[in-house]
């Protein structure tokens, strides 16, 4: 196998492994659109990163986190419904990002690469980001798993029982921002949430515990990466979208399976 394919596979598996356990929470907490908004704002991060000459990963993470905090603040004012706010934030951030990029004429940006990912061009340093960031996220998630589960079931009950609700929610947002930052190069900002949601939704039917669902989702994500890359290798399809198409097909197939009950 060629080197670049090995790197692509390693990066894709890394993304699948870390996106799945976060993805199950995104699904349980009905935050799919929230994840999408953070991902959209990642492009603004890229633009600002170029503008300020700082690490793109850091820039993307900061912007995503800032968006999350802004959303929290707006939500507390309760004047607009959350989905409206998300729609405003997502598309404004994406557009501002594109406008800022257009102003920097000396920088040539591969826009398609950021929007849809360029997994076949993954470098060793990208790999280090994916796996390094992934390990950090998984460790933090492991530490707060129980608390995050408790606030997902009932936030006020968890608070009465002593769970630090605000801290847990902030950490969860931070982790999503981090996953978006490190996997942007792999699947792109427009497709990253699908790597969280589709495997998680597919895993639901095979799971009877929360942990099982996260584990199965990770496996499904890995299979989708493998299938997508194979399609890209043999049929020359775009790699990022092929991975998402594979995940979607797996989801469909699972829905067609006869119910066990």
């Amino acid at each position, binding site marked *: 196998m060629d080197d670049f394919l090995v790197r692509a596979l390693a990066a894709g598996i890394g993304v699948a492994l870390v996106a799945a356990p976060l993805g199950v929470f995104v*699904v*349980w*907490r*009905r935050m799919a659109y929230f994840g999408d908004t953070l991902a959209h704002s990642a492009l603004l991060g890229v633009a600002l990163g170029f503008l300020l000459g700082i690490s793109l990963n850091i820039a993307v993470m900061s912007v995503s986190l800032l968006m999350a905090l802004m959303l929290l603040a707006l939500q507390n004012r309760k004047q607009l419904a959350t989905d409206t706010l998300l729609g405003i934030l997502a598309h404004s951030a994406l557009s501002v990002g594109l406008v800022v990029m257009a102003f920097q004429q000396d920088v040539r940006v591969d826009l398609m690469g950021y929007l849809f990912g360029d997994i076949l061009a993954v470098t060793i340093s990208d790999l280090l980001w994916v796996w390094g960031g992934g390990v950090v996220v998984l460790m933090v998630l492991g530490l707060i798993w*129980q608390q995050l*589960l*408790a606030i*997902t*079931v*009932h936030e*006020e*009950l*968890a*608070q*009465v*029982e002593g769970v630090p609700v605000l801290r847990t929610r902030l950490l969860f947002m931070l982790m999503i921002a981090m996953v978006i930052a490190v996997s942007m190069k792999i699947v792109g900002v427009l497709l990253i949430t699908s790597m969280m949601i589709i495997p998680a*939704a597919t895993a*639901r039917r095979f*799971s*009877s*515990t*929360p942990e*099982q*669902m996260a584990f199965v989702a990770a496996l499904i994500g890995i299979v989708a990466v493998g299938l997508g890359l194979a399609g890209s290798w043999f049929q020359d399809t775009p790699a990022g979208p092929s991975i998402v198409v594979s995940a979607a097909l797996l989801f469909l197939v699972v829905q067609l399976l006869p119910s066990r009950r």
Partner: protein
Amino acid sequence: MTDASPLVKATGVDVSLGGRTILDRVHLSVARGQIVTLIGPNGAGKTTLVRVMLGLLKPDAGRVERMRGITIGYMPQKLQVPENLPLTVQRFLKLACDREDAACEQVIEELGIAHLLRRPMQNLSGGEHQRVLLARALLREPDLLVLDEPVQGVDVTGQSELYALIGRIRDTYDCGVLMISHDLHLVMATTDDVLCLNGHVCCSGHPESVSRHPAYLELFGSKVADNLAVYTHHHDHAHDIHGNIIEKQEHDHG
């Protein structure tokens, strides 16, 4: 047996949300071994008061003091586990306390939920659901038990059983209980004190005296009257300012 100092005490609590006054100078205290029941019509601020007592909501004015170091068991009014979250009853209970010992067994035994442990949370009947929630509150070995409509969705026989169980729990665990109820007659036997709430405290005291209190009768009597007034009938005529009948104009357009 009742401690002199209350487990939780609210003094002159005011809460207004979105410009509407929900609670107006409310006083309430719960002592160890005491069962206090909040009653009142919908929108009377019962749940708001409970949230203030739990520290989930900061009052605009007034003070809430909780005894230092007490454990609170809370049973929220509504708890719906997301449909796509696979969670068994056992796992749900473990979120409150991650241990398996005699005390846990005893709670599960007492509430008769042993046969439910492996069931998904989404697959419980109303009564089973409420008993599981109560179990989770009890597993924390609470000093204070706060129950927001503990018998909702439970059939009538189940309701009185559940109230009797809450009474026994108070004796076994020697805890204070603050609960919300709709039906004074059902809780009458269990509760020590009743607080009739409608934005402000209408009346409070022992259940028998509250049930005869003019403010209670007015509140719940008037509710019944409202129910009768809800009976809608379409007039085929209207009155002019002097009380004379005038024909409706819309027939002309018919």
